[in-house]
């Protein structure tokens, strides 16, 4: 199961659009076996892609000025690894991204859970949340740019404005799907609030919240780099824009690849954290067992 399956709960409003996976799971078990054995074809595919790129870049169809060969790009990447500017930019981007995401989580999760527990609150906020999550927040970039200038505050504002929604909405659904029977049991036994939070709420909502976190993390990275690239705040996006204007093509590719690696890493970290923290969850266990 990749990040894509995670979109299912987002869609789950009144009616779950994705069918629950009942039925035999023989195919996924077979697929899992193949994954273990299939390292060689993966490497072959990557090498083949790189070779194809090299051939196209060397062929007379395109001049090497516009399409650098992979060798040139790797060379540029190594060159950048030696420079301070690269690491500073990477560090800034990561810091801003993490701050923005943390802030979104601090705002989005509690608010979403609170709204989700009450039917009236859900109804009251339905239209507002629906409206704000479907408008492209990037449109506010010029305004935020005017207010804060090309600073990390501008970036963080943009990140929170866009990354808070997946978290908020997933937390709302999370609060809704807590088993009513469990809630009654907890009430009947007069279990203390702290214990309720610890033993009922935290385990029940965590999987949905994690899904929201993964979506938000991706959104936040997209926003960070967009804000840097268009708004000119320091970071990877700005370096990318500088290299583009200086016609340093291999460096442009190197920075784009860095952004890709960053995206991969972020996704991997969230998935690993989910495995680590939610190893006991039936759905996660099923995935591992399969």
């Amino acid at each position: 199961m990749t990040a894509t399956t995670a979109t299912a709960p987002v869609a789950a409003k009144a009616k779950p659009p994705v069918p629950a996976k009942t039925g035999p799971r023989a195919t996924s078990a077979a697929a899992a076996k193949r994954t273990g054995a299939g390292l060689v074809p993966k490497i072959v595919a990557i090498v083949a892609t790189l070779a194809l790129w090299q051939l196209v870049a060397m062929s007379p169809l395109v001049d090497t000025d516009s399409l650098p060969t992979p060798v040139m790009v790797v060379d540029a990447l190594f060159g950048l690894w030696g420079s301070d500017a690269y690491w500073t930019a990477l560090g800034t981007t990561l810091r801003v991204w993490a701050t923005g995401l943390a802030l979104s989580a601090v705002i989005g999760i509690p608010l979403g859970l609170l709204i989700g527990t009450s039917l009236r609150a859900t109804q009251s906020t339905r239209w507002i949340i629906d409206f704000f999550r479907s408008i492209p927040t990037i449109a506010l970039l010029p305004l935020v740019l005017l207010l804060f200038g090309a600073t990390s505050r501008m970036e963080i504002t943009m990140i929170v404005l866009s990354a808070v929604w997946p978290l908020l909405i997933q937390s709302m659904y999370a609060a809704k799907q807590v088993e009513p029977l469990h809630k009654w049991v907890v009430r009947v036994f007069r279990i203390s609030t702290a214990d309720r939070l610890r033993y009922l709420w935290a385990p029940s909502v965590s999987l949905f919240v994690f899904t929201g976190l993964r979506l938000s993390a991706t959104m936040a990275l997209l926003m960070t780099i967009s804000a840097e690239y268009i708004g000119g705040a320091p970071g990877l996006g700005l370096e990318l824009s500088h290299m583009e204007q200086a016609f340093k093509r291999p460096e442009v590719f190197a920075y784009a690849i860095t952004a890709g690696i960053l995206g991969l890493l972020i996704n991997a970290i969230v998935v690993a954290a989910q495995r680590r923290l939610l190893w006991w969850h039936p759905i996660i266990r099923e995935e591992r067992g399969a």
Partner: protein
Amino acid sequence: MRLGIRTRLSALAWEMWLPVVVVIACLVVTADSTSFYFPSFAEIFERTGELWFFDGIVENVVPSLLRILIGFAIALVVGIVGGIVLGLLPRFEQAVRPILEFLRATPGVALMPIAIIFLGIGDTMKIFLIALASMWPILLNTIDGVRSVEPVLLRMAASYRLPMKTRIRYIYVPNAAPQIFAGARLALTIATVVMVVTEMIGSPGGIGYFILDSQRSFNILNMWSGIVVLGVLGYLLNFGARLVEGRVLDWHNKKNA
């Protein structure tokens, strides 16, 4: 859902009150606003009416809409066809998975300089980037959907020696449809963001360009009106997508109800 008319009305009332209060509050609070950045709501709406009906719509909304629709349509076709093909070739899909994951994880904006190098700053680049960035959720969800077909159905199809065409039409596609739509909805959000970003960088024409241009010339009212129009456009696009989904997945929702 068969609810009584009273319950429905009360639900509607609960849904209505906060948005109404918020709009009125905004109108009142900003009524005699002297702030440079936050002009009064009424003025913004007035300007929106003047600017966008109907010159602005022809000049800026239509190009934006065309771009996102064409880009999104390409993403849908490539994503679904590619997803079905990859879903049917598990070994090949396993091999190229790392490459797909890498391309998907790369933020679309980071690919923009590269796209500009090859395609310039015109419509081709914009449509290409919209299609590219919004293709991944559709592609990966289609693969997952095709993969999760009940093995019993496939064995049945094998027993009856159904041709591949029939299997795709009556087994794979209906089974993957809910997943494809879930991916498409995510893709639409991404497509809107990429549309605005590419317009902000590229050539004139389009709402994104209009907003950034107004900001650069400190025409705050124009900028706000652009934001309002873009918000409405985003909302309508989402609404339209949900309508289509409700239609197409009607059978599925009924089955699950």
